[in-house]
């Protein structure tokens, strides 16, 4: 057997990953809970969190005698990351609680219902609840990666339902942004993996006038093909003066929501009686609700209070004539959307 000075090369599949289940105390505090009540899970994408200490050089500066750089200077710390998973009640509750920023936990049918909706920045400020990401490869005496990335927030998430016999019939993608703050080694002992209770597309139930053809919902009418639900906070990292440094680079002092946006698109089969074009012509609007379930009591829901189709395009999906629908998400005054997940986790996000 060959020997390696630093040990054998590590494979990405060895990565262990966990997140705070409830919010951190603040942007500069890595939660101690990461070691005791962290949400450890598996994921589909191979990417590790994209932490970067950016640096600038002096190539453009006058006075060196030529255009070539002579030195580099650390500038700032940044972090971005993505988690892709098959949709489960656990990841959905976590994503909506942290991603919307406002959620309430209550007992529901043998589980805990986490009801969430986009938070109100007028009263709660521009910052979402912060969380910690822990990544490890061979933690212990000879770690390859062992870091705690705190001051992280959910920039957005996307839920996809597709026509598939496999687990990929329902997926979620969660995008994270961090201040770049980190602790190495993390000092965290990984908990056991939280068993996911998956919510498959086959359980989907639709309600609301905008998800109907000829007064029958798309699922019942057997015309539903797929849909995508998206929510984006468009976070901006604020590097305010006095924010402190790490490894010579500035740290973000806040991650602030920008122009938030919710999206919903769907593909349905075009049939005689399809009235989507008429709905656009008439500026028809109405509610849309998607419910999906896993093993009892695990469940999920997304409700748009009011939407209208802004585009309908005749397309083909595997040779079948379909309509590609894009929605404008409207605010009737009581909020644009809500979502809930029922799982066995007592508290997620900012819930006390």
């Amino acid at each position: 057997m060959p020997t390696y000075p630093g040990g054998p090369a590590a494979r990405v599949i060895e990565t262990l990953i966990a997140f705070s289940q409830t919010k951190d105390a603040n942007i500069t505090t890595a939660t101690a809970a990461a070691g005791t009540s962290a949400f450890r899970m598996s994921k589909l994408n191979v990417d590790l969190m994209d932490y970067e200490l950016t640096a600038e050089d002096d190539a453009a500066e006058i006075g060196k005698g030529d255009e070539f750089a002579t030195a580099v200077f650390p500038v700032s710390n940044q972090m971005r990351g993505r988690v892709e998973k098959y949709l489960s009640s656990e990841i959905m509750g976590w994503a909506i609680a942290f991603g919307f920023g406002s959620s309430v936990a209550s007992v529901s049918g043998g589980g805990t219902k986490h009801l969430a909706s986009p938070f109100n920045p007028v009263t709660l400020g521009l910052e979402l609840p912060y969380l910690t990401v822990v990544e490890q490869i061979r933690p212990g005496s000879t770690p390859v990666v062992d870091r705690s990335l705190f001051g992280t927030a959910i920039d957005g998430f996307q839920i996809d339902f597709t026509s598939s016999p496999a687990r990929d019939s329902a997926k979620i993608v969660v995008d994270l942004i961090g201040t770049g703050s980190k602790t190495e080694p993390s000092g965290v002992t990984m908990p056991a993996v939280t068993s996911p209770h998956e919510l498959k597309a086959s359980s989907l139930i639709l309600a609301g006038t905008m998800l109907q053809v000829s007064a029958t919902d798309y699922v019942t009418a057997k015309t539903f093909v797929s849909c995508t639900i998206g929510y984006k906070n468009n976070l901006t990292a604020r590097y305010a003066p006095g924010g402190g440094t790490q490894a010579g680079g500035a740290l973000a002092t806040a991650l602030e929501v920008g122009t938030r946006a919710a999206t919903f698109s769907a593909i349905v089969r075009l049939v005689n009686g399809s009235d989507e074009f008429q709905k656009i012509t008439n500026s028809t609007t109405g509610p849309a609700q998607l419910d999906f379930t896993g093993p009892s009591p695990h469940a999920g829901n997304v409700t748009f209070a009011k939407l209208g189709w802004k585009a309908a395009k005749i397309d083909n999906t595997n040779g079948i004539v379909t309509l590609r629908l894009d929605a404008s998400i409207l605010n009737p005054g009581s909020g644009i959307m809500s979502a809930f997940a029922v799982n066995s986790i007592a508290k997620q996000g900012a819930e006390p």
Partner: protein
Amino acid sequence: MSSFASNLKPGDIQAPTAQAGTPAPKVWLSAPGADKPEQFEAKDEILLPLMNQGYIQVAGPTEAK
């Protein structure tokens, strides 16, 4: 049907009252700037307008430290 009460206005929100049958779960919420939390029934149509106004969930008085 949608459980999202789009026609519910802030003035419509009432404290929970005793009802026959199984009582709905209750949660403690705190209004922005309020020093005392209030208890509400854990129903979507009650909670969502409150959350939209900036109410946040807090531990109840018996759980408060």
